[in-house]
């Protein structure tokens, strides 16, 4: 069978789950090994600057992790579809932001994304895949818009963008790694609790406390 044709078949989580957990855990370690840099408006260029940028906005971080958690809860194909689709949709939002096209209520929508996605995880909601994709995709546009509008002038734009996208993806993988704990009873409770905490953090962002 053609490689490409094989790729069309929905993968199963039954294959090498442990390797997946280990790979995601490695991604988490890589994530936390990044040196601390300034947040928004940073003119730090290059891969490291782009990589650090999404990590220093707590509202972005919790929402990205929630996407991963929810993907893990929903199971295949959502678990692997979300990290593929989200960066592309987010990039679309980023393009809008870069081009200066105004989008109303960006910060509110970002905070709301933490509330909604966290609640979905806390309730272990399992809507149809297209509903989940639509919801996550809609929020991705707002996240991308905020990041796109904040891209610094100068520096190495290619490396910066690559770092920025990779960091966002690794946040998803972090959420997925934690979300995979839901296979066990205690882990399921822990993941749902994490969703609740994310939702509460979103409420705090909405109310201006975060």
């Amino acid at each position, binding site marked *: 069978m053609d490689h490409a044709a094989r790729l069309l078949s929905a993968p199963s989580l039954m294959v090498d789950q442990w390797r997946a957990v280990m790979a995601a855990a490695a991604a988490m370690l890589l994530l936390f090994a990044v040196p601390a840099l300034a947040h928004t408006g940073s003119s730090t260029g290059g891969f490291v600057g782009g990589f650090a940028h999404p990590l220093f906005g707590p509202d972005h971080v919790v929402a990205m992790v929630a996407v991963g958690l929810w993907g893990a809860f929903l199971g295949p194909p959502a678990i692997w579809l979300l990290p593929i689709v989200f*960066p592309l949709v987010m990039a679309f939002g980023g393009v809008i932001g870069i081009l200066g096209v105004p989008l109303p209520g960006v910060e509110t929508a970002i905070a709301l994304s933490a509330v909604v996605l966290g609640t979905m995880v806390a309730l272990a909601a399992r809507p149809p895949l297209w509903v989940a994709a639509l919801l996550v995709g809609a929020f991705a546009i707002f996240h991308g818009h905020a990041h796109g509008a904040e891209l610094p002038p100068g520096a190495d734009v290619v490396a910066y963008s690559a770092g920025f996208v*990779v960091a966002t993806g690794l946040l998803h993988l972090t959420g997925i790694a934690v979300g995979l704990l839901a296979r066990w009873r205690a882990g399921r409770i822990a993941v749902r609790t994490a969703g609740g905490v994310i939702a509460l953090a979103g409420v705090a962002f909405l109310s201006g406390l975060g």
Partner: protein
Amino acid sequence: MSGFVAGLLHPLVLPAHVLALLALGLLIGQQMAGRQIVSLAAFVIGLAAGLTAIAFAVGQTLAADVLLAVAFVSGAFAAMARPLPALAYALLAAIAGVALGLDSPPETVSIAVATAMLIGTGLGASLALAVIVAGTSYLFGVHEWIWARIGGRILGSWIAASAILVLALRFARGQLF
């Protein structure tokens, strides 16, 4: 010799070149093994044409933007993992080769060193693409490791997202084309 080594490493140190080679390699690696050689050959021919053109001092071109566009298209199709006509792979590879060659002007006044750099660039880019294609093909096809295929698709989407962001930024700054 140093010119040759500098040329050899040139495609591996420029982020736009790395993105394009990675995305194209992922895409070609998803092809059937027998057809991959055609795409690789198209890349090498295009690269040779691009390097020959730059050797004859072609002026400033759109090569960098075209490379990013190739990275976007290749990354997006690699993420979708939908089979394309064989001609599309070869065409994309040829365009990438020409653009990479045109975007690799040797920064030296010595003809001998410049020639060595161009040869090195040709060899380095061709080898890099061949290694990525071989690695992708091996992980996707031989081992049947499902997570490698998913990882490849995720990487493709990340590259496409990065490339389109950069193209948008260059457009916003009036630097595109």
